[in-house]
């Protein structure tokens, strides 16, 4: 009994020390969480935009390889496809930590806005993975769907928009949800470029208070809650889209 009471008192004093004292919850945890969410949300948006464009370029190139008329348009498509290929290879072939440090210390060396650099770095990184997810989705749709659309008189873009992409999106939703979860957690490396995100905030508290338990477990719980919320959200979206068919 006595043991339990001292343990509880200990926990309480640790909690006060780590979060309440000096408004640490606000200065490190809340502010860090804000930066984490800011980076994750904007990076997701950039990633989706890049991903859709790259996926459509790549799958258009692959799908029309032997049917298209040879000409100027085809040459442009080949070049753009080549650029996309290089982008995918570099981004997927190097660690995101190295990428973000290259952006911060080399490319945007004159900028001190770590959060913005983080958004750009994570967005460009995520775009490569989203592109491959979308491409897999587009390629998973039976060629007959494409032919049916074209045979009714839809052009390539209309067929993609009305027939292929809605089906592809539904198929890739689980993979896309996974990518967002990974991205959210990946922002925790932003501390390497002096961004105070949630992880860095918790780490600062560890340094100030010489206690590791509370800040780290606290940060972990916050990530966990956000991820669980995302999982719930995607599960709901998936169910809603599937319900349409039955």
């Amino acid at each position: 009994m006595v043991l339990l009471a001292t343990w509880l008192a200990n926990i309480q004093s640790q909690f006060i020390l780590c979060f309440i004292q000096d408004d640490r919850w606000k200065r490190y945890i809340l502010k860090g969480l804000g930066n984490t969410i800011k980076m994750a949300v904007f990076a997701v948006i950039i990633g989706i935009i890049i991903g859709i464009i790259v996926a459509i370029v790549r799958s258009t190139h692959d799908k029309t390889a032997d049917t298209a008329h040879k000409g100027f348009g085809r040459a442009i498509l080949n070049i753009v496809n080549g650029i996309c290929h290089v982008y995918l290879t570099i981004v997927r072939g190097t660690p995101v930590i190295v990428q973000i440090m290259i952006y911060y210390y080399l490319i945007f060396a004159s900028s001190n806005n770590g959060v913005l650099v983080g958004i750009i770095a994570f967005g460009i990184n995520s775009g490569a993975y989203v592109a491959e997810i979308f491409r897999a989705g587009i390629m998973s749709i039976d060629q007959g769907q494409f032919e049916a659309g074209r045979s009714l008189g839809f052009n390539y873009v209309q067929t993609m928009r009305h027939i292929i992409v809605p089906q592809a999106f539904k198929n890739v939703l689980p993979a896309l949800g996974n990518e967002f979860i990974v991205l959210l957690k990946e922002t925790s490396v932003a501390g390497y470029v002096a961004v105070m995100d949630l992880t860095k905030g918790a780490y600062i508290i560890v340094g100030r208070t010489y206690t590791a338990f509370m800040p780290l477990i606290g940060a972990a719980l916050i990530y966990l809650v956000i991820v669980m919320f995302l999982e719930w959200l995607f599960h709901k979206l998936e169910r809603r889209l599937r319900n349409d068919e039955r």
Partner: protein
Amino acid sequence: MTNGEVLIRVEGLEKHFKGGAIKALNGVDAEVHKGEVVVVIGPSGSGKSTFLRCLNLLEVPTGGHIFFEGTDITNPKININIHRQKMGMVFQHFNLFPHMTVLGNMTIAPIKLLKQSKADAEAKAMKLLERVNLADRAQAYPNQLSGGQKQRIAIVRALCMEPDVMLFDEPTSALDPEMVGEVLEVMKQLAATGMTMVVVTHEMGFAREVGDRVLFMDGGLLVEQGGPEEIFGSPKSERLQAFLSKML
């Protein structure tokens, strides 16, 4: 029937795949007249499906010309999408859009391409559904339908665009035997309305009964053509005789 004006004229049609390694069509000349039902038969690998798919340029020919309503649609400068609106196509595997209801499948093209209002497009679609006895399935999704129902929907989906010709690519080959009849019945009805049809099929009974003209293809060539009595009654070429003896 065959005296009507020429709707499709095919001249020296060639289709080679993989840079000439596979020669699916080796110079086919043919004509389809208005109001005519042309049935294309031949062994598998004879190029009959490729021939049909070239007619609306789903396969881009590597040689020759196709004139549809007087326009050379093999000319890369023309907008093929406009001409495809006038050529309905029915596929072996139905290719209904699984994320839309039956009504959605039928109305998307008229709404988006012909700029019909949703109400108009749906009213027309319902009329067609009644013609194929599927009005009660208007709100169903494709995976709730049987194969025969799917194919009947695919036919009326194409009809919603009010095409000048209907292309059928082995429309009954993926069906269970007991469902073949209902699809052929719809096609017969359609032929009776005077619709121009080009049908690739293995259904010799249908070819005989409904076809105005039968084309026999083999080895990427149009080997023999004529009325169904000539083709089935007194085949001239050896290859057609051999083919028919295996089929009948």
